[in-house]
């Protein structure tokens, strides 16, 4: 009897097991190809992700030295292996061809074959995209005025090709979904130049903004109603390519109306322009508050008003005797993972008042964790008296 069963081979399959009728019996056997089959894994997923996967909108991303993540169009998930001590017999659907030729033999009871014993399965845990790497990659080779104005690019280009990334290169290297990658590029003020995603170097941004402001005065334009065509034309005459000029409008302005006489209208955003000048002034280090404010107000274009609260999350102040010093410390230059972020924040200052800390932590996102929970996890909150301001220090 034993030998008989041994030679039955694989006839039925998963459908026979799942469709087994009450009061029926079938045999379960090892498949003729039974093995460890390390190339077969199980992945547990939410029902709502099934269509994404079946429509081939999902990729697994990561370098050999990184833990792989699974990306849908909009989200990033870590892959966790969960082992089991149970025996999980995997039964594939039947091989139709084999089934038919065995059907003639009506003496046998149906057999379903086990192809593999699964040691466990992979599970998905939503995680934040790894956008710090994007920041790092783009910072390797910022687009500069020298490169932009260099017309003879033929052989120089070869040399400068390091640190240049196309969309596909970034998708290969950065563990983020396409949507997260796109908004990451936007947040970094990156622009696609000749097929490569670049950030513009500070000096170049400063030049083009100053040129734009100069053109505004020269042509008697209004900050609130800049005609896109006119701006691009003027900047192009000044030597700035159209895509860079457009980028400048996007970085420092917002589109207001679609069409006035067939052209888009833009408004320069006071805060963004003012912050730019504050950053330029503080580039060389700490300054006395009075000196900084005087210079800032002087530098900001006429018609715009610099006010210190615009600099929330951009600068910090410290007391030195009776002086107040101000220095550049931008949230945009800090890591986006909470542990690293708080590490740097508490290196900068041992104790933070909430009003100072808030601008530096409000952008932190951890899937499944509220902002309060993040604070609770990484900081110690003390409140000397009931009505005193809470103070946050390292855990």
């Amino acid at each position, binding site marked *: 009897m034993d030998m008989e*069963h*041994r030679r*039955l*081979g694989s006839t039925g399959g*998963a*459908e026979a*097991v*799942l469709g*087994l009728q*009450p*009061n*029926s*019996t*079938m*045999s*379960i*056997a*090892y*498949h*003729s*190809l*039974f093995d460890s089959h390390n*190339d*077969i*894994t*199980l*992945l*547990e*997923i*939410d*029902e709502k992700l*099934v*269509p994404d*996967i*079946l*429509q*081939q909108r*999902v*990729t*697994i*991303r990561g*370098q*050999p030295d990184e833990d*792989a993540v*699974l990306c849908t169009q909009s989200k990033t998930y870590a892959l966790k292996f969960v082992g089991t*001590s*149970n*025996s*999980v017999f*995997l*039964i*594939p*659907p039947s091989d139709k061809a084999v089934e038919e030729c065995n059907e003639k033999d009506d003496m046998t009871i149906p*057999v*379903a074959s*086990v192809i593999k014993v*699964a040691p466990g*399965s992979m599970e998905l845990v939503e995680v934040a995209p790894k956008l710090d790497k994007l920041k790092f990659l783009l910072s390797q080779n910022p687009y500069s005025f020298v490169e932009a104005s260099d017309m003879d690019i033929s052989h120089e280009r070869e040399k400068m090709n390091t640190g240049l990334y196309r969309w596909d290169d970034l*998708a*290969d290297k950065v563990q983020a979904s396409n949507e997260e990658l796109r908004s990451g590029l936007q947040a970094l003020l990156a622009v696609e130049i000749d097929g490569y995603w670049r950030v513009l170097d500070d000096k170049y941004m400063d030049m083009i903004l100053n040129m734009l402001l100069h053109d505004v005065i020269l042509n008697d334009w209004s900050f609130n109603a800049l005609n896109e065509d006119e701006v691009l034309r003027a900047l192009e005459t000044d030597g700035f390519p159209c895509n860079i000029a457009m980028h400048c409008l996007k970085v420092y302005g917002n589109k207001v109306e679609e069409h006035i006489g067939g052209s888009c209208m833009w408004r320069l955003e006071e805060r963004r322009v003012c912050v730019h000048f504050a950053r330029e002034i503080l580039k060389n280090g700490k300054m006395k508050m009075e000196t900084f404010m005087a210079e800032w107000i002087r530098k900001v274009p006429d018609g715009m008003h610099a006010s210190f609260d615009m600099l929330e999350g951009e600068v910090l102040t410290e007391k030195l005797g009776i002086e107040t010093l101000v220095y550049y410390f931008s949230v945009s230059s800090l890591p986006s993972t909470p542990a690293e972020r708080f590490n740097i924040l508490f290196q900068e200052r041992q104790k933070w008042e909430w009003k100072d800390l808030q601008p530096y932590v409000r952008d932190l996102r951890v899937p499944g964790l509220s902002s309060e929970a993040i604070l609770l996890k990484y900081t110690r909150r003390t409140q000397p008296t009931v009505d005193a301001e809470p103070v946050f220090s390292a855990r």
Partner: protein
Amino acid sequence: MQIQVKCSCGEGDCPEWAILELQGTVEAQPSFQNSLQNLQIGILCRQSQENYTFSVGYHELTGTKVKLKKPMLVLKKIKLQNEEEMGERDVNSLRVELDVIGIIRHKILFKTRPKALISKPQPAVKEKVTQPSSTVPN
């Protein structure tokens, strides 16, 4: 590096696989241990609407069909052997795809300990179920 997750079965047409799950492990007799292929593990019987039994050697397990809380995909790693590229590229850049070859929505779960089948003695015990923990009732 990106690994595309594909499904060559076409949407909505992904074949359903089945899982038979039991506690502990099934051990074949030493003489079979290296040639499990085609060997019978046991007999699955649906005794009623709800109840399933799985008889392995002298032992009988009782269980039920369970719908998984979340479906599981069966993924198969496919190495793409592009011969033209292979010459230039090193092993690290060997392209890999994951093919969804099946989906699992149900399993037949035996979570009880095995019951000894004393009424049906067989001369040769082909396989036995071993439990992680000590005694077997009956």
